[in-house]
């Protein structure tokens, strides 16, 4: 037996939030993207309910433009941990005419995910969707509650948020509303990486350096892929890169890197002069890009 438990306050807080979600809601779901933040959520959920299994399913909104490494990783994790995975595809909504594919140089299915997510919430009647968004990521996310109420259109009313005092979470909602829950709200990018290192959590290979065919545009490194629009004059090169954040192929830029271990990643981030979301093409659309997407029901 160990002596006195030396707790990590951020971990304790996240576990507390997970247990509140489980007891305050009837039908929660964990939004899983295959990125490091949602992988961290899975570990925290495991700890919160151990020795019971994680008492809710994972939901992946698949744009069809994912990195294959992410999908492989997702399926392996689900199998090893015996989790229930629900996948809903943006492609299906496009095929049925519910979503319209963007066109042109910066086209991406990133914002189309919102529609598919809202449909899934309605289909399964989820009343709480647990996500890995963090307040340090982006200025609109800095304003988020831990329990964030959405109306039946999935909209975020950012000017009229429910007060959240101390650690007392109020998850009461009307039928049709849902709550977005953010257990790692107070973690920074570095906190997540330090945790992944300490806990020896496995992450997809694309977070580490690898050779990739890329092209450069607007000072960012884009993946050369059939899903990414590329002008003829934009030359494809092979470089050693890794991803700092993992969205889909069309909206996630790579960074040049030689990091092969988590420790090296941590060192790179500590010295980095660009923020994590600085490599998110979807945030560059305008100063309020994230706020606008959130109002519409984005993650």
């Amino acid at each position, binding site marked *: 037996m160990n*002596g006195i438990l030396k707790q990590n306050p951020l971990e304790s807080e996240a576990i507390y939030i997970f247990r509140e979600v489980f007891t305050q809601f009837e039908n929660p779901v964990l939004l899983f993207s295959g990125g490091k933040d949602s992988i961290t959520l899975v570990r925290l959920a495991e700890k919160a309910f151990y*020795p019971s299994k994680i008492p809710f399913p994972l939901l992946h909104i698949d744009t069809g433009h994912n990195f294959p490494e992410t999908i492989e990783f997702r399926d392996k994790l689900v199998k090893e941990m015996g989790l229930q995975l629900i996948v809903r595809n943006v492609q299906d909504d496009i095929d049925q005419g519910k979503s319209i594919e963007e066109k042109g140089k910066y086209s991406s299915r990133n914002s189309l995910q919102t529609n598919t997510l809202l449909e899934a919430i309605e289909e399964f009647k989820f009343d709480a969707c647990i996500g890995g968004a963090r307040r*340090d990521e982006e200025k609109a996310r800095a304003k988020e509650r831990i329990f964030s109420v959405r109306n039946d259109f999935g909209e975020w009313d950012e000017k009229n948020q429910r007060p959240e005092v101390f650690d007392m979470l109020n998850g*009461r909602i009307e039928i049709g509303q849902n709550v977005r829950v953010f257990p790692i*709200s107070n973690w920074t990018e570095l906190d997540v990486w330090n945790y992944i290192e300490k806990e020896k959590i496995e992450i997809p290979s694309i977070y580490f350096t690898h050779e990739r065919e890329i092209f450069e545009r607007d000072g960012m490194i884009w993946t050369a892929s059939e899903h990414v629009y590329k002008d003829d004059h934009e030359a494809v090169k092979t470089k050693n890169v890794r991803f700092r954040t993992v969205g889909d192929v069309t909206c996630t830029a790579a960074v040049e890197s030689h990091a092969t271990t988590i420790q090296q990643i941590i060192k790179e981030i500590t010295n*980095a002069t660009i923020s994590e979301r*600085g490599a998110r093409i979807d945030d560059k659309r305008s100063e309020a890009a994230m706020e606008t997407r959130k109002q519409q029901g984005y993650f």
Partner: protein
Amino acid sequence: MEVLKIATAGSVDDGKSTLIGRLLYDTRSLTSDKLEAIEKSSRKKGLDYLDFSLATDGLVAEREQGITIDVAHIYFSTPKKSYIIADTPGHVEYTRNMVTGASTSQASIILIDARKGVIEQTHRHFFINNLLRLKEVVVAVNKMDLVNYSEKVFNDIKEDFQNLISESNFKNQKITFIPVSALWGENIANRSSNMNWYADATILEHLEAINSEDFLQQTQTRFSVQTVIRPKTEAHRDFRGYAGKITGGSLKVGDAITVLPSLTTSKIKEIFFFDEQYEEALAGSSVNITLEDDINITRGDVIVRCNELPQASKYLKATLCWMDVKSLVPGAKYLLQHNTNRLLAKVEKVESHKVIKGESAQTENQLQLNQIGKVSLKLSKQLFSDSYEHNPENGRFILIDTATNTTAGVGFIE
């Protein structure tokens, strides 16, 4: 890893954003893309200095109006500590946001404009700090560059502030005065060469030296049960654990405990965190415990040491900060949430108002949005609680409006 949560409050003009921006900048927590965005927007506004409010005012409406509306959370770190700043607006109409920001903090920074000295807002910020019982208060006297770095100005403000302290009912505070110029980064992270008369710590040095272990509650043990863990799997067929957070004191294997409200007694058999077993766990830890005896325990129950029972009553007197547009009036019923426990509460009376300097007139026997007052409540069931003063985590509650589901107020039990 140490985490220190700090509350700040203030309006645009007193340099709060600049101070926060400075802390981020001087600890190299601002990355170049964020800095570029700040430079771009400062230029667009025609400013010849960096407007750091962009780092804190995250909503379009806030940037349009140049005001902070809602709480923003800002993160920076040093090799020693992670810091979380809960940044809130300072005006009277945002009192509820200030209370919200301060509620998750352990320390606070009160900003004073050296040219203006102690003003109405200072009263309000200090009052809220006292209401929340924040032990560490830093009074940053800012814009010293605009008063010729005068030691006399600084000392006069310090003396004025002493009057506020003498009126306060919370004596265990540690209040530290620091003269700064946030704009020029003086006494923020780097020492000022213009104020050699000040030899004490800079703001960052002071924050670094605060021992966050001190905030762990040296109180009686309280453990409120969030959920019962019963895996019913092959490997853990008979396991029945009580999961929750220790909200005060500590739990030790072998401790004789009482379960509330049933008053059944038992002993702590095991303390788990994930798959590891521990002899003892302290306040703040989310653990999973088992007891020697099979007793009926559900969410909302509280486990305490046998000789440390809290007060039990169907009546409550509390100081309430009202957060809803619909005023609180006698006779109204609300859902009271006290840790993981919920019960009904009926407002009997608004006993008195706490009028903070500069506030508008109060309406007798009701509390309006952003007002603070003493109320008496009648409860549907007996509640086991402590006074906020003696055990903060077991001495506070929220009131939920059952019609709108909103969190309408926060209470501090007497």
